């Protein structure tokens, strides 16, 4: 077995195990840690497919930003030692049914579909290409989404401030 394949399966195993742990762990900080592991493993994937920029964003924004945010909020709102009660059986069963059946269906759908490999040559993914496209205004240029998402971030910021601001 090739190294990269082995690595893929290791990463897969990490993702599978830790995502299960994330949703089952009864201690919230641990859950956050498991989530971080999943996200980092995902970043590993991105490295494997040569999308370093993506992987970097994943690590910085996701693992670094969001998870930290989550951990902060956990610290703000929960006791570290607090252990959750076990989920209700009924809810657990329903969750499992939805999860398992959804997973089964998507797997079947994926396996059934005959994906066609492309004949087009791969584009070179470097920072320059990414930068050009991000500011491109034609097809496959992402200037417009880029601008709009800035409005979104501004609005989210204002919104978060309005909501979280203390006092009258």
């Amino acid at each position, binding site marked *: 077995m090739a190294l990269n394949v082995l690595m893929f399966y290791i990463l897969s195993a990490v993702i599978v195990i830790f995502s299960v742990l994330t949703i089952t762990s009864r201690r919230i900080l641990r859950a956050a840690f498991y989530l971080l592991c999943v996200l980092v493993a995902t970043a590993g994937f991105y490295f494997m497919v040569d999308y370093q920029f993506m992987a970097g964003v994943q690590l910085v924004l996701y693992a670094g930003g969001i998870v930290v945010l989550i951990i902060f909020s956990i610290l703000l709102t929960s006791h570290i030692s607090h252990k959750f009660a076990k989920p209700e059986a009924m809810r657990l069963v329903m969750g499992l049914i939805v999860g398992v059946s959804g997973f089964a*269906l*998507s797997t*079947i*759908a*994926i396996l*059934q*579909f005959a*994906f066609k490999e*492309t004949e087009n040559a791969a584009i070179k993914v470097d920072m320059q290409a990414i930068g050009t496209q991000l500011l*491109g*205004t*034609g*097809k*496959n*240029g*992402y*200037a*417009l*989404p880029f601008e*709009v*998402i800035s*409005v*979104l971030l*501004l*609005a*989210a910021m*204002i*919104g*978060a*401030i*309005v*909501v979280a601001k203390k006092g*009258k």
Partner: protein
Amino acid sequence: MESNSFFLMRNELILVGIAMILLVAEIFTKPEKKNGIITLAAVLFGLATVANFFPVPEGTLFGGSFITNPMTVFMKSVLNIGVFIVFLQSVTWLRKEENHGKISEYFILVISTLIGMNFMISSGDFLMMYIGLELATIPIAALAAFEKFHEKSAEAGIKLILTSALSSGILLYGLSFIYGTTGSIYFVDIVDKISSNPLQTFGLVFFVAGMAFKISLVPFHLWTADVYEGAPINITAYLSVVSKGAAAFTFMIILFRVFSAVTEIWQPLLYTLAVATMTVGNLFAIRQNNMKRFLAFSSIAQAGFILLGIMQGGELGMTTVVYFMLIYVFTNLAAFGVVSAISEATGKENITDYNSLYKTNPKLSLIMLLAMFSLAGIPPVAGFFGKFFLFTAAGAKGYYILVLIAVLNATVSLYYYLRVVKAMLIDKSDEPIGTFKTPWAMRASLLICVAGIFVIGFASAIYEYISSISFGIN
């Protein structure tokens, strides 16, 4: 790319401009003069609304990411009108002491969500659509929790953000399959690569589910009532009219543009959703006592009717849907306006509080009566035309049974709309809501609504205009 092609994005740019002006104004306004921002925002927005009525050439920008045509421009105008009315209706509310510090934030958030909706409507690829969708959702969650000292408001905010995140996750998962099987996020590239294989259907269904969340179609509607009840009334009005209208329009346009090859899949899917939505919406609406919650379920049921038009899939369908939404904006905002006026004046929001309202506030009651009749689809008010044409659209496709179910549901809906009428005109009350004077802004907004309710039905020119700019699958 020429500079005047930005003219195609006129409305979005104006809105961003307004948002910026307000942001600046917020910084340079003294705290005791914050109320001036209300007037500023209303005037600016009114101008923007008027400006958008000027004709615009058709065209695309950013390599197909942004599409504009008379229909999208018209839809944006409809949304602008809705938002303008909402602004007028929220004047009193904003002047309250507790909201004093959040006036400009309110406007900025609303306008930014409106920008999101505008991009959503004009989107030419899934990325723009998704970003627009999120932009139209995330700030609303903050708005829903705007009265953050009310527990209900906070609850509304959290429920909205978490469920909407889930829904956008599901939507995205569907979109990822669409991208994976077609190789593009651009609508024009996708359209001829769609077939009815399981994976693409999977993607389609998840996409529909995500959109159904926004339009609050049953069974993806559960957040609606809670959020509508908890959010400030004006936000609820905004959610139920503008946000829903934009999402429905986008949903329709994408189904037409992208999934035109698989109508045999999404039509039965919408059929099911329509039946479920109308029925469940009605059943829940029957037993509500809180006016906002009641209107929430009523608007769920109304969304079911919109699907009838979408399913038609042709010019007729689009015309009827847009026409209905136009009517719906005026009708529902009239209802919310009255609820808002009463709530601001007395704090009462229950149907039973409205007993004998006609005795003390006859004008408000009459407006409410008209709104209820229009929602129920009773002639001669516009709602009748809107509903009948939606039925016509479904009939054109041969869905007579669906039409029957829909009309029967309309009959059931009449029951609860009449409950409100009954409360106001028939039921006696020991402590009726006292007579109060409605502020001028509210009056103006209600006047606009009433004019709309009466005129749009009879003025066939409006329908003809919509018909002339609409397009179908083919």
